[in-house]
């Protein structure tokens, strides 16, 4: 009601009068040009800010530990001289600013320090273990994404307008249970059924194709159910929209109605949910790798926290945070490509 339209001759085309655009007036765009480009730039900026925060946080992690982290790492029995020596070798005796400069400078040269427990460079350990974690999470995400859409769409279409209520309740109840079971518990169940009981798959390790099956299933099931439920709910919402009534009034065949008219409108919400799932999957590797004794960075973070191996902790935290940032960025870019309206709606 408050945006004045550009002055037009009275008899010419009518002025916009959508309630959606009425209100507080548009916010200025970052660039005069395409809102999509502005959206992408905004997200890149956000990722850069996030990265800076992550850098600072991972650096200060060691300094935030109450007491003396070096003493904690080495245990109470080690001599004060050894503690001092390690402190020097970690560079913790330098002024804070100098330490931070060294830390960031080291990152640019791929130097993440040396692990206290194994004496190996942290970067080498991570480079060795990262591919495993990446493969585990990407495989699981693909299975979750590919499985969720047909299930969500099919159940929504069959349940539309309260039809087949028993089936609908059954399906959503089942999905709800799958979502409620934490992945580490599911992993233990899978091992007890398929490894101990049926002896179909090995219970631990990584490398053989048969060793991939159970971890991927354990990691993918929950996200698959979650995503399927989002698709289901979104689809039901879209099927209630007036433009679907319009499409119905045209008596379009079901295939056209659901695939061409309804499906494109659930893309934005599904992608956003997909982002949450992907990020959750990345974190979920911590638990799954521990259960299945997989040598990835997930099991590394747990063991490094237990042994208080601070250089290693810093490195893994940093890598995980960057993975999360990349996952978010990928989803944002996909959103900009697949659903340009969402980028406009944000501006």
């Amino acid at each position: 009601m408050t945006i004045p339209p550009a002055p037009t001759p009275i008899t010419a085309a009518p002025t916009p009068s959508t309630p959606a655009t009425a209100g507080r007036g548009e916010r200025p765009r970052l660039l005069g040009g395409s809102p999509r480009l502005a959206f992408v730039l905004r997200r890149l900026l956000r990722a850069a800010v996030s990265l800076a925060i992550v850098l600072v946080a991972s650096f200060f992690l060691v300094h935030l530990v109450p007491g003396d982290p070096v003493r904690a790492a080495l245990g109470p029995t080690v001599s004060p001289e050894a503690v001092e020596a390690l402190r020097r070798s970690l560079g913790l005796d330098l002024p804070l600013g100098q330490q931070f400069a060294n830390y960031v400078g080291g990152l640019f040269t791929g130097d993440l320090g040396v692990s206290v427990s194994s004496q190996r460079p942290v970067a080498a350990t991570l480079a060795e273990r990262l591919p495993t974690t990446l493969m585990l999470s990407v495989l699981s995400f693909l299975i979750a994404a590919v499985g969720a859409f047909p299930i969500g769409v099919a159940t929504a279409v069959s349940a539309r307008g309260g039809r087949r209520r028993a089936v609908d309740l059954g399906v959503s109840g089942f999905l709800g249970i799958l979502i409620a079971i934490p992945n580490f518990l599911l992993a233990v169940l899978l091992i007890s059924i398929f490894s101990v009981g049926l002896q179909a798959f090995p219970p631990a390790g990584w490398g053989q194709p048969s060793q991939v099956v159970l971890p991927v299933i354990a990691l993918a099931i929950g996200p698959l159910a979650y995503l399927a439920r989002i698709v289901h709910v979104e689809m039901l919402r879209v099927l209630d929209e007036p433009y679907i009534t319009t499409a119905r009034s045209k008596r379009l065949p079901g295939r056209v109605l659901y695939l061409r008219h309804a499906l494109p409108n659930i893309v934005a919400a599904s992608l956003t949910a997909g982002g949450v799932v992907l990020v959750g999957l990345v974190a979920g590797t911590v638990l799954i790798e521990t259960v299945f004794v997989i040598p990835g960075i997930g099991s590394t973070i747990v063991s490094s926290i237990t042994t208080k191996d601070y250089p290693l902790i810093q490195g893994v935290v940093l890598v995980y945070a960057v993975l999360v940032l990349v996952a978010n960025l990928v989803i944002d870019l996909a959103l900009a490509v697949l659903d340009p309206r969402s980028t406009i709606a944000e501006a």
Partner: protein
Amino acid sequence: MSELEFRAVSVRYGHGRAAQLAVDAADLVVRDGTTHGLVGESGSGKSTMARIAVGLTPVSGGSILLDGVDITDRAPASRLARRRVQMVFQDPFSALDPRMPIGSSIAEGLLATGRRSSRLDREARVHELLDRVHIDPRRAGESPSAFSGGQRQRITIARALAAEPAVLIADEITSALDVSVQGVVLNLLRELQQELHLTMLFISHNLAVVRYVSDEVSVMRAGRIVEHGGTETVLAHPEDPYTRELLRSVPVMGEPLELEDA
């Protein structure tokens, strides 16, 4: 004496190149004891005029005077004077706190008078106001969900009246209502005009409704006042082409619509 004067007010949203002028150097005077109709279409800036008068939106230029006191700045005197301008909103469903009994909502209006009153006084006043807008005062303890749209709109009018406003601003107060309910609310406004000597700025997109309640009328388009004057004069002899277009667009009961030149 209470007179509300908009003096060359402008409202700008946004900054730089994306800035938009919602109100563009608009002049308007609501004279004491009269109702001034402000008519315009969506996006004309008429609702912004209401929002700046009560301080919900800041002005970018010009001033608004209530009996000569500028009510647009942050000075305490200005703030105090601004409370004497009250507003009734378009949507009666969002204008009342869903979790507050309607009696308490109306009592909130007493805040604006600046007087401290005892609980008994407040209850008596709420009783009186509900009576005035023809709602059973025994229902003061009920929550808004128990009332229909028209009843809620009368309750928000009672809340505004509780503030003893010098000027009442009615922003599209009947456009969310059914026509039969609209009549009830308009009749109530007329009654209040006569009994309370109300000064009112009545904003609507509906020319016929504005004509029915207003003594004077201003026509707004794209942030500018394009025409103003006595209601009968403006509507009988419109000067501005836009006013003429508006008049031509209003369907008249029982007469075929003239659409050839649309």
